[in-house]
């Protein structure tokens, strides 16, 4: 095994690096969106790309999300690999018609003759004190649309690996970037960035025996923190980071729940009609005889995303997760 020099890096830096490496490796990769050129994106994820690759490869588009995605469809039809940036989660909605009516089904309606290799980067989720329309978690909409892959990294290394995998994918990928993790640092080797496993594999972030926390994106660090805190209560929690919501890694999730017998799904988007309902149902269907308690959900409230001063009450935090874990002791004697 080679030892590599690990340095602290941010998720945003890893994403920039992934874009740069993808553009350098393949001249058909084009980055486009609002303010992605000179400014480098409002989160600076596309920083330097226009300078290095020219404005034809990293393009400031007019301000129109349907137009951005719609023209990207045409570019992909001609053989390019567009990587589209939607500036914020709630500003991707004007592009939904293009996404759902065209991006997601072009392969299907052309019987495989015209796949669309398109990556749609969407900074999503709350916790950054953003004003209205800057904190939505829209993953359930994407998950409900056949033909799209939906992925979301929680670590610096995954941000790099998953973005490279998404750009390399011959199918459209909605790449959800947890914006409150943009500046989170962890150890990473920027000199030798590694690609990850193919899209669709979950990973056990922390092994444990008492119960499984099933989570993804911005809630992964929260769940890891909850798992640390739970040790004091005598609970040894396993944390599964899904990484990919579509396809869904039933195997890793079910194997974990069969080991632990208990599960809580944690995410910040609303619970009703949210991803947690689907995940809980899948777990129940596969692990019914192993379950010691119903699968619980800790989700955001079923409300429009709250104003910044109230968002801490909405976001699933350590205490709410621990409360749910406590409720998993369904029958006394645990």
């Amino acid at each position: 095994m080679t030892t590599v020099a690990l340095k602290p890096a941010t998720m945003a830096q890893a994403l920039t690096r992934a874009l740069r490496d993808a553009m350098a490796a393949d001249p058909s990769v084009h980055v486009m969106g609002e303010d992605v050129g000179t400014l480098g994106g409002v989160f600076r994820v596309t920083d330097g790309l226009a300078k290095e690759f020219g404005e034809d490869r990293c393009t400031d588009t007019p301000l129109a999300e349907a137009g951005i995605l719609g023209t990207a469809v045409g570019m992909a039809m001609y053989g390019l690999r567009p990587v589209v940036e939607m500036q914020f989660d709630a500003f991707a909605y004007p592009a939904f018609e293009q996404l759902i009516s065209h991006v997601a089904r072009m392969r299907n309606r052309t019987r495989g003759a015209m796949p669309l290799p398109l990556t749609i980067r969407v900074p999503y989720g709350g916790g950054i004190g953003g004003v209205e329309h800057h904190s939505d978690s829209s993953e359930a909409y994407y998950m409900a649309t056949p033909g799209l892959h939906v992925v979301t990294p929680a670590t610096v290394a995954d941000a790099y690996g998953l973005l490279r995998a998404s750009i390399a994918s011959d199918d459209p990928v909605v790449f959800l970037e947890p914006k409150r993790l943009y500046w989170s640092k962890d150890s990473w080797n920027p000199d030798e960035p590694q690609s990850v496993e193919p899209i669709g594999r979950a990973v056990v972030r922390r092994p444990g025996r008492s119960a499984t926390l099933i989570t993804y994106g911005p809630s992964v660090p929260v769940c890891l923190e909850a798992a640390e805190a739970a040790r004091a209560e005598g609970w040894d929690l396993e944390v599964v980071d899904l990484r990919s919501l579509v396809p869904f890694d039933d195997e890793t999730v079910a194997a974990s729940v069969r080991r632990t017998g208990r599960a809580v799904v944690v995410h910040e988007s609303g619970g009703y009609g949210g991803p947690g309902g689907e995940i809980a149902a899948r777990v129940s269907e596969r692990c019914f005889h192993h379950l010691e308690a119903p699968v619980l959900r800790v989700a955001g409230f079923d409300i429009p995303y709250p104003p910044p001063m109230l968002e801490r009450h909405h976001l699933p935090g350590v205490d709410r997760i621990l409360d749910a874990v406590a409720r998993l002791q369904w029958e006394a004697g645990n």
Partner: protein
Amino acid sequence: MTVMEQRGAYRPTPPPAWQPRTDPAPLLPDALPHRVLGTEAAAQVDPDLLRRLYTELVRGRRYNTQATALTKQGRLAVYPSSTGQEACEVAAALVLEERDWLFPSYRDTLAAVARGLDPVQALTLLRGDWHTGYDPREHRIAPLCTPLATQLPHAVGLAHAARLKGDDVVALALVGDGGTSEGDFHEALNFAAVWQAPVVFLVQNNGFAISVPLDKQTAAPSLAHKAVGYGMPGRLVDGNDAAAVHEVLSDAVRHARAGGGPTLVEAVTYRIEAHTNADDATRYRGDSEVETWRAHDPIVLLEQELTERGLLDEEGIQAAREAAETMAADLRARMNQDPVLDPMDLFAHVYAEPTPQLREQEAQLRAELAAEAEPDSAAGSESEGRGR
């Protein structure tokens, strides 16, 4: 200092950095739709082109009536006829080079056929067999697009990509008058103009969006006027004058290919049939209006021009009709065969690699199909399953 403290008369000045960018006049369309047939300009048009347009119009009309007849026989789920609009459909197909791309809307089956697509393949979507029915890359015809105006940004993106790659490819995108109210129409025009993309937009203004007339769709002086605000030329043309549509579109395609950027063309035409075979047009328009337009029929206009100038005789007319009948007979014969469908295709093209979830569903359908094929043994295994 406030305004009140300023000495002298208040004289409004333009904002400091503001300059009008260009004189919009060259972008404005003519006041009246451009015409060629029946005018002196017609003499300049290549007689072979006129004859070719004529043959294609006659074939196109026959195609429309044949496809409509197929809906009555239950062979097509629906058919939005372009009868009356054939000049636009045919010209759109003929002005393009092989390397160019056509972006049709759901009404433009005929444009695809005139471009050379097999008539049966062109009807696959409407037959209910499979969505697109052909390989778009092979024919350089995008899938017939049902959500209105959403194909327009695709055309812009494709044309832009081609130019980035150094190919002198032009995209021609078709849209109806109703479609010009959609956001995608405006976004596409704006992108095209900003990027100077080699794309031509052809609006077939046939008077109605299902039942809604143009005056309830827009307050603009004409749809071609919409071009000016985006910074591209707008052209207005008689959509039933095949020579005029061909000329205006050829100019626009040439302009785009030479790097001049996009053009918006509005063709003024009329939908003679109802919106589709399922629509009742008598609810929103009177017979007399339809009759006025019948007198301005694209085939009649061209036939007059050609016969008056001695370019077409009874024999020529007969030959065009016979060619059209041959096409129709072949279409009928092939459409009367039941298509053979494989239900497993449902899962074949959702992703490059089916997700594990789709593999499970695929297995389920395969088992269901096996059970259907062998009812007895299937019943046995099912009860066995229940017994466990």
